[in-house]
């Protein structure tokens, strides 16, 4: 709280992002495409860490928020073709509204029930998409008429810029007085209440922020891919990848979420020649890191420097 936003970790991260922004001058479109997807996943994982690491709520349904954002933006575009910015904004808004509707009752139940509620929400959304296939494209998927750009490079820069902005915003929030109250509310709600903090209000706010960034990222990703499908945005396995990315990178670090998610996506892709074995190897690595280094990749790195 006192150390300000521009801590060494942030300066290093910004420097890394700056270097990454020069990548399109050297690498192929294939790698750029891979990283573009990875950056959006980075935002998903960072948003999720705000809930898990700070509000101490396990949201098993990150894809509920992501899917709402993606499909709302995609459907709006395919029906009326308004400006893309409007579609993206509508997607973010839908994710926030969905998040509030989900969190309001879910935050009132204690313990594992919050997680179960969020899990059920994903299944509901998935079924809705399949049942209302006329609107959503159903199991085949929804092809949107517009994309942000046909250029790999521009898409890459947009994703990188968006991830950098999201990371700064989420990290700054987590370090702010509001983030401190949120952390206290997550760790010991009774004591936070006795200090005069409205625990439900703060947790709900964190859910809204998490939903906002998840929805934005989901909507932007639709207009990068040009299509939305259950398998890329909503499926439980996508949610698991978001969660593993955040835990792998390091809980309660925000920035770790981006690192973990990018690592997961890139590792999965580079091992693709191994077929099904690739998923197994990546999962095994993730498991080892989580078990052996509960602080995640950031924890590993931080331990070496002596201070996180």
């Amino acid at each position, binding site marked *: *709280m*006192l150390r300000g936003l521009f801590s060494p970790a942030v300066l290093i991260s910004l420097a890394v992002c700056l270097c990454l922004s020069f990548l399109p001058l050297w690498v192929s479109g294939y790698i750029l495409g891979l990283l573009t997807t990875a950056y959006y996943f980075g935002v998903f994982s960072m948003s999720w860490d705000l809930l898990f690491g700070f509000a101490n709520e396990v949201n098993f349904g990150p894809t509920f928020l992501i899917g709402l954002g993606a499909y709302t933006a995609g459907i709006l575009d395919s029906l009326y073709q308004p400006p893309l910015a409007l579609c993206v904004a509508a997607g973010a808004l839908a994710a926030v509204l969905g998040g509030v509707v989900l969190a309001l009752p879910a935050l009132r139940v204690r313990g594992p029930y919050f997680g179960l509620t969020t899990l059920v929400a994903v299944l509901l959304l998935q079924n809705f998409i399949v049942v209302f296939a006329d609107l959503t494209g159903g199991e085949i998927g929804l092809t949107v008429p517009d994309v942000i750009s046909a250029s790999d490079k521009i898409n890459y820069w947009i994703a990188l810029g968006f991830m950098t902005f999201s990371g700064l915003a989420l990290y*700054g*929030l987590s370090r*702010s*007085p*509001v983030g*401190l*109250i949120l*952390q*206290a509310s997550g*760790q*010991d709600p*009774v*004591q*936070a*209440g*006795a*200090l*005069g*903090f*409205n*625990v439900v*209000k*703060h947790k709900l*706010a964190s859910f809204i922020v998490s939903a906002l960034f998840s929805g934005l990222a989901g909507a932007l990703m639709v207009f990068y891919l040009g299509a939305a499908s259950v398998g890329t945005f909503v499926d439980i396995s996508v949610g698991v990848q978001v969660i593993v990315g955040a835990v792998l990178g390091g809980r*309660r670090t925000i920035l770790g979420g981006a690192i973990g998610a990018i690592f997961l996506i890139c590792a999965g892709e580079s091992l693709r020649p191994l077929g099904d074995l690739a998923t197994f190897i990546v999962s095994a690595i993730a498991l080892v890191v989580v078990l052996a280094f509960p602080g995640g990749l950031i924890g590993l790195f931080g331990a070496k420097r002596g201070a*996180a």
Partner: protein
Amino acid sequence: MKALEVEKLSKRFGGLTAARDISFSIAPGEILGLIGPNGSGKSTVMKAILGVEKPTSGSVRIKGVEVAGWPPHKIARLGVGMVFQHSRPLHRQTVLENIALALLPDSLTRLFPDPAIIARAKAIAERVGLSAVLDRKPATLPFADLRRIELAKAIARDPAVVLVDEPFAGLTARETSAFAELIAEMRRDGRAVMIVDHNVRSVASLANRVLAMYVGERIAEGSPEEVMNDETVRRVYLGGALTTAARPESSFKDAATPFLEVDSVDVFYDRAQALEKASLHIHRGEFVAVVGLNGAGKTTLFNAISGLVPFAGDIRREGQSLIGRSAAAIARGGVVQAPEGRDLFTDMTVRENLDMGGLRLTAGESEERLDWLFDLFPRLKERLAQTAGTLSGGEQQQLTIARALMTKPDLLILDEPTLGLAPIVMEQISKALERLRQTADITVLLGEQNVTFALPHADRVYVLEHARIVWEGPPERFEAEAGARYI
């Protein structure tokens, strides 16, 4: 105007009345001690004032404002601070940041810290004696400093009313007096202070008045001396006239090498010392009681004997050191604990729980043992097919003891069997222990904070206080020599 007024406050949980018609008030600059044994309802009253539990009926007024039924954060903002017994600071934040947290407005838009808050947090840290460690992380601090952080957070918003939960638990004598001075300072600042603790003695030097509770009701109120000498309070804490069946220590045959010897044992949890040079011994066939308040170190002592916590010093069974033996080996050797938390298999039936205890017996032995236990605890026979989770607290306690007895222990360790039980249920357990003593050749080590329950059974008594054994003797000398420590 009174800072805090509680009037006819009642709280029921289902059929259990945890607090009934409790009334008291505290003026600014006054300290009230709210005392009572475990299960007396004092914590319930405290939670009702904080808003953590909604009172079933009655009124709570802070500075004249009715707050019964309000959520905790609103009550806190009206001017109630709480010093929690267990400190859980934010571990990634510094001491200063932990204190500053308590000063932050409950706002979602305050994204940048206000320099005035930092200045104020520093001033508060200085008052409670934390100036030297402002930039340290809590994990690197001694236990007493963690308690100071809690205290700093509680007074940060300048509350009119401060509730303090067991302020001295786990503190050494020197830390205790430093902490008492900080609480006295709150009184000088004109705050109304309520200290919740187990006995009069721990609050006597601070409190202007003491209110004593027992099973949800108020039993006495007055100056510490008045309450300490109150007939009802003495009966609740000491049990009044004692009929004891104590056997003299010389009547046990293994005088030279007692069955179990605990030899100046030290136990630390992180930085808090839970047991300090504790020595005691138990003869074969003897019934020894260790009495002490919550946090005195009873459970730690038993866990050391059972090999569940690492310790310094020596524990010998029949002259053989138990050091290096695993908890499982010690238990197989016949030193068996009926733990405080009961630890029953709640989804299994009574019969299955008992069978778990008798796994190493032959079928014949097992049957014989069961018959004896049903004679001891007839209630369990009626409940055989019921799952343990559905039993009442008293029945669960009986089952815990019975399951431990199924293993045919050489030494049975009973940790607080009366915890949370109503007086009438305690009586049933007490009768069973009496019969156990008469019908079986068994060695028992009983840990209790309820002296009334423990003394009639005991051959010998140890008093454990702040991690040290401070008295040893036969039960009939207890009241005269150690009673005052206890009320």
